[in-house]
């Protein structure tokens, strides 16, 4: 549906996709959009794949993004980017944290982690950004802020004013962690390969 922006956040249970989506939704609401957000978190704590779908626009009906219709995908892990890339629209933006989290079938030798994830993705997607979000978060002062680094990277591709993002961070992040997360957001925003 035209006029609706579809953003998919994909990752592994425990990576903070939910806080990231809260920041994103807050910013979108502040911009006056109607927002719907859907998440399947069956057994997120047990290390499975997690997907959060955020849709914003003048009028949003379905809370779910269909394959081929995501304007942007933020992948918190390489393999999850691989798994979900076919949801991207032609011309859509793919942002990937270059971290690898190896799933159990690979750990026990029953499957292999694909060797050329980033190269394959870069070849397929023209608007592609891979960044070391975990390292950037650690440099900013807290490895747990990886999710906020990725929101910073996403912000570059969205036309929200800076103040809106700053306000969203203030609203959704506890005061004592705010400074670290501001730095993390900025690191993601300013990141260049």
């Amino acid at each position, binding site marked *: 549906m035209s006029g609706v922006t579809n953003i998919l956040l994909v990752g592994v249970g425990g990576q903070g996709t939910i806080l990231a989506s809260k920041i994103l939704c807050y910013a979108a609401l502040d911009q006056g959009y109607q927002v*719907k957000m859907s998440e399947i978190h069956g057994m997120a*704590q047990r290390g499975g794949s997690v997907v959060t779908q955020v849709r914003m626009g003048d009028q949003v009906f379905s809370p779910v993004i269909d394959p081929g219709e995501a304007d942007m995908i933020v992948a918190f892990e390489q393999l999850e980017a691989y798994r979900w890339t076919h949801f991207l629209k032609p011309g859509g933006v793919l942002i990937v944290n270059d971290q690898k989290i190896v799933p159990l079938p690979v*750990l026990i030798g029953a499957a292999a982690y694909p060797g050329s994830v980033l190269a394959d993705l870069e070849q397929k997607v023209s608007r592609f950004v891979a960044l070391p979000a975990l390292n950037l978060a650690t440099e900013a002062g807290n490895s747990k802020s990886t999710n906020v680094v990725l929101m910073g990277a996403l912000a570059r591709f969205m036309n929200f004013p800076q103040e809106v993002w700053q306000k969203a961070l203030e609203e959704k992040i506890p005061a004592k962690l705010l400074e670290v997360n501001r730095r993390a957001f900025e690191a993601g925003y300013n990141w260049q390969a």
Partner: protein
Amino acid sequence: MNTLMTGNEAIARGAYEYGISIAAAYPGTPSTEILENIAKYPEVYSQWSPNEKVAAEVAVGAAIAGARSLVAMKMVGVNVAADPLFTAAYTGTRAGLVLISADDPGMHSSQNEQDNRYYAAFAKIPLLEPSDSQECKDMVGLALAISEEFDTPVMLRITTRVAHSQSMVELKDPGERPLKAYEKDARKYVMLPAHGRARRLVVAEREKKLAEYAESVSVNRMEMSDPAIGIITAGISYQYVKEGAPGASILKLGLTNPLPEQLIRDFAAKVGRLYVVEELEPYMENQIRAMGIEVTGKELFPPYGELSARLVREKLTGDPGPAVDAPFEAPIRPPVMCPGCPHRPVFYTLKQLKLVVSGDIGCYTLGTAAPLEAMDTCICMGASVSGALGMEKAHPELAEKMVAVIGDSTFMHSGVTGLMDIVYNGGNTTVMILDNSITAMTGHQENPATGKTLMGQPAPKVDFVALVKALGVKRVSEVDPFELEELKQVIKTEVAAKEPSVIITRRPCALIIKNTEKPLEVHDCTGCKMCLKLGCPALSFDEANKTAVVDAALCTGCGVCMEVCKFNALRKAGEA
């Protein structure tokens, strides 16, 4: 004020705003957060019950006593609660009673895909289906109004996408929490056959009145647009229709039992081609066809899985929308037992002993997956225990190579009666109760053995040893599952015993304790890969250097792999 809420949060808010006094539930995805959120409103008394039947009876009792009540469950929970539900439909209630059924099309986290709209029709109670969070909240109010006007329980049926999606909700101040005086009325509330026959006629009369009411209730409404295509829809499917067929005329039904026959006829007369778009079974479609109205539905849409805007567009216009590339091949990332999970050594040992495992539902069902692969059956909550008795009766020799495995919450939910049956009917089966001190699978809810209530009050703890002894089990052992050798010996001994026995493994869930153990280190690994058979996410193998590797960020230092390693290659940091 407006705020984003999930459907479940909105239902909780509705309970608060519309005067619910008593709410009960047993957890189950996708319903669990309803009660977790109601518990945030101290004005509403809320509780976890040991199972859905008990929860429903608590709510029925409260409503008969005069308090507005709510009971929530996942769809298979309604199977458990069906007994009180079907008869409460005859008695009616003094104050409003809402039953929330959270269905799971697509089986994101369920063992089947049953469509509980049929339960409402079967029990002869009104059925409401919201399509977003605002409607979730509003329909709690409507359900209570219908319940009190027509003297009947009302089912509010949501699906995973409604329960777990956020959309805007307008918050209002809570109204009063009315409490009617209790009065005895045995003809209405004691369902002996004679009273039941009288009430059956009342129910028939009520159905007629409800059918009239359904014609004019505002949640059943036409949205006329292009008259060439008319679509009857309800619940989340409405959103898919709005998006996938934007020009079509729509009859959106919020009250779907009973269906508004005249409204449907009027709509059918106004449109060219008539479709029904509904997830799962042809529940509305079959009834509409029985009215003699020509309609298209399941010829186009599957009776399983979730629908989507894309599917609606494709089936109604022939245009699926943007082409989709084939996905990259990515190895699956299944949920796994956490590092330090007390269930892991149990399934490792069961596999080693090559036992038949009559399984059950909980985090421990993950023992089915490689590399543990130590579960033979899993049907429904409680079936591990009673199912094992059946297996043993079919093949008596199985009793000495079989265990039933059940979690603490699941045992209290519906394992106790099965164990009673084993004792009563001369079974020999060994039942293992995996007591991790919490209901872990659904996100760590308190239960009758944890010592705390949903509202945070201290509570007595069920004493499993005393309980199973009282059922007549003489052989009861308790073991720490991290003591691998002892665990193995106890299982061997009890499985061999020619009488019923219970083994209780005790160790709290790794996610609810504050861990103080140091992660393990690898020294002089021989590369035998024994430790990988545990399927611990903190352990992997470096093929180049032929050595096991511990991920120190994940390892909880539980030490189970130390016990599995025959070469002392895995050690606590700092220990020789």
